[in-house]
């Protein structure tokens, strides 16, 4: 019984849930339409007049479209009327499709062609890269995308005049045909590191002037030389290492501010690296003399690669001999004099090595003093004394 009642309830639920809408069948009257156009081709911005002649007149819609751009008009239910499109509606060039539509039907379909006008001001030009080396391997490019006064791409086959000014007296002019809506020219680098100016024109239109900057290429023929070279390892003087005037393969001076690295090699190992920048094509660096005798080889690099030959710089020991005296309380080192009879640099380190102990003092006016009670030096024990690259073994009971 319960099951039966539920069946009845579900029957009604089903009945209500199964309602269906009836299809509405619409029948329309369609006019017969004939179009008259002066021409199926017009120029951009011109007036497009379409004479619409109807039998059984009825209002319709007219749509002009090229897929991206669409224009539309309502057509009244008159036997004869003229529909007009004018600028700015007709500004876009290209092939359009004209359709007259009534309800669910397209009554007429026809192609209309709008032609672009001649090139007008300004001619858009694109230049890049803006900076190129003068090594003839790099090139820049000038691209002109001319347009008509409505911004349409102009017809292929038109020509634009291009001009490049490689120097004050060298102006190169030539014509380029527009192909696929643009014209282009490959700009080769100058041999001289001078700016290059380019422009594009047409009888009634011009571009703005554009500049391509030519910068010198890698330097060639680098030579190093030294100045102010004091050939003794006194740890006080500076030696100036400088390049010749650096030029690229075409003789252009390398621009100011170009950074060079100076590498110091000792015993075939790089021990130090200094930076220098070019001023008027020359780069230099000051290197402090070592504190002991050394043979340096200095090389220059730019952009991570070594160029030119290295230069050898030698330093001999400045100190000839170590002078000292030992008394009851002290070891007195000095006077320590250099090659010119001068005291060696103040602050030069004097070192005493006793067994596994090291003691260091600095010189002042060529003298250095060790207090014996501080260093606990036993008799018969050798002490290794070193200063400015020289060494000597001394005994307390000497």
């Amino acid at each position, binding site marked *: 019984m319960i*099951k039966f009642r*539920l*069946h009845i309830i*579900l*029957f009604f639920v*089903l009945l209500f*849930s199964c309602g*269906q809408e009836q*299809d509405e069948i*619409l029948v329309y009257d369609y006019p017969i339409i004939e179009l008259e156009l002066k021409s199926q081709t017009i120029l951009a911005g011109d007036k497009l007049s379409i004479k619409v002649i109807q039998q059984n007149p009825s209002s319709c*819609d007219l*749509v002009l*479209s*090229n*897929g*991206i*751009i*669409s*224009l*539309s*008009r*309502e057509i009244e239910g008159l036997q004869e009327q003229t529909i007009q499109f004018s600028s*700015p*509606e007709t*500004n*876009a*060039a*290209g*092939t*359009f*499709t004209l*359709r007259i*539509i009534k*309800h*669910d*039907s*397209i009554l007429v*379909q026809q*192609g209309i062609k709008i032609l*672009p006008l001649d090139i007008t001001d300004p001619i*858009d030009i*694109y230049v*890049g*890269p803006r900076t190129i080396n003068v090594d003839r391997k790099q*090139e*820049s*490019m000038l*691209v002109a*995308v001319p*347009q008509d006064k*409505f*911004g*349409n*791409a102009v017809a292929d086959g038109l020509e634009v005049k291009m001009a490049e000014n490689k120097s004050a007296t060298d102006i190169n002019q030539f014509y380029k045909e527009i*192909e*696929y*809506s*643009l014209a*282009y020219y*490959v700009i080769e680098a100058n041999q001289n590191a001078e700016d290059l100016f380019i422009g594009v024109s047409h009888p009634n239109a011009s571009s703005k002037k554009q500049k391509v900057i030519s910068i010198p290429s890698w330097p060639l023929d680098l030579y190093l030389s030294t100045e102010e070279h004091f050939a003794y390892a006194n740890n006080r003087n500076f030696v100036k290492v400088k390049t010749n005037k650096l030029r690229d393969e075409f003789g252009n001076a390398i621009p100011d501010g170009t950074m060079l690295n100076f590498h110091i090699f000792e015993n075939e190992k790089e021990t130090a690296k200094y930076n220098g920048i070019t001023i008027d094509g020359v780069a230099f660096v000051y290197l402090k003399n070592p504190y002991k005798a050394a043979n340096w080889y200095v090389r220059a690099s730019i952009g991570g690669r070594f160029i030119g030959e290295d230069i050898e710089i030698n330093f001999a020991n400045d100190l000839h001999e170590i002078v000292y005296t030992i008394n009851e309380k002290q070891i007195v080192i000095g006077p320590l004099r250099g090659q010119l009879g001068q005291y060696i640099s103040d602050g030069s380190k004097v070192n005493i090595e006793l067994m596994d102990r090291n003691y260091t003092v600095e010189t002042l006016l060529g003298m250095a003093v060790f207090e014996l009670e501080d260093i606990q030096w036993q008799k018969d024990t050798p002490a290794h004394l070193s200063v400015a690259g020289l060494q000597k073994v001394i005994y307390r009971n000497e």
Partner: protein
Amino acid sequence: MSSRSNIILRILAAILLVCLLTLLLFIFSKVYANFKGASNVVNVYEKVSSEFDHHHPYFKWLPDGENIGGNINPFIRSDIQKAYLRSWASANLSIRDHKDLGLIEHYSEEMRTKITQYFKGDYDSVIENIDLNHELELHFISFDKQVVSFTDHNVRTIQRIKNQVQTPIQEEVFDYKVVMTLDDGKWRINKMLRTEEADTSFYKKRKPISFNAADIRGVNYYPQKYPWRKFWSHFPKDTIESDFKLIDSLGFNTIRFFIPFNEFGGPHISEDNLLKLDFLISTAKIHDLKVMPTLFDFPVGFELLKYTGYDRHLKIILERYKDEEAIIAWDLKNEPDIDFEYHKKEDVLAWLDFMIKQAKRYDENHPLTIGWAHIENGSYLSENLDFVSFHYYEEIDKLNDRFEVLQSAVGDKEILVSEYGMTSYDGFYPGAHSETEQSEYIVALNNFMLEKGMGGMLWSFYDFDEAPSDIFGWKPWVKATQKEFGIINADGSQKPSATQIKNIFRNN
């Protein structure tokens, strides 16, 4: 104070509290709506972005022109492709909605002025425009990768204009000459010119393909454990192999299966899914079975904007299997007439008409049909289809008259019943039938089809453990009956209808 006054006061306080809460909720919703509205720009971009997600036109780079100036790498090519396709989508959306939807991102100022003049007018029709095909031939790229020029060949656009009613879909094929420039890091269309109409002679008009419906002894197939949406994600190969063997042994010669649009990959079908499809077809071949794949199963949207994705989906599948002999036909959509209830009928029919045209382009070898849910709708678009198919689950004595109407409407087109059957659910809900009734129904319908020279495809091979709500709705009596249309029980045992089927096929 009496207890009665106390109660009244409490009731008044409760009402006041409810009013206060309602007021607060109202104020909060207004503030929230205000903030949402303020982010109008963001909304526009969100809208455009979500609509772009449906834009999947076919795209390919043709060989570059002879001297293209600079060099182009795949990354720049990809950037240009993306920007160019988005520019089309942006223009289509803007024209449809009569407002600037992202044009500034994709067009130069001059181009934008020309596009926007349309929707600044007072014309109130809606122009729906969609681009389906782009084949780009690069002519030029500048050394600094700032300017490109190319021709977009065979740009196939479809257009529909809606006022009170809508026009049929109009198709055009044109070439476009385009210059794009890189401004502020974005590729924009600087110049665009539609040129002469493209050569469309390669779109040959396909002749009708003959189809003998009477030969079809088919069954609709899902694996028992993984029906409907679960099928392609689980795809149990071993089960499919053993099921096809069983199907063959029962005397069936054709399998109808379903390829849902979203679940199978939408516009970007993975190779993995295609390999599954390969497997299914090759397994059918091993057992001398033919297949009738049914495309676009489950609801899809019929907006013109989404056509590009459907077109890509269709192209990928049909072009891959256009020479596959095991396929007897393509069923383009399962029961589209059910969509008449939820969408405009004209939109559904326009969509089907478009898909028929596209399918004929992509595969000239296989017949096409549409599996209508109701016999009364079987004549829709029949002039463009190679044979007619419908589904039938109602009383057999009501079939003959309806069949005669259909037969006279479609002329000499072959007719296939691509789904028929009866549930053997014998439970509490209405619509219940015994296994014997199921068996008798199947025998009777087969006799009818035999008499009329029709073929048929049984629904379904298996009983299923569940009928999902997202397909069959909330009604428990519908779901209960839907689970038991099979001739094989969920436990693998055969129902009486399976034996009857075997006998019918053996004797005919």
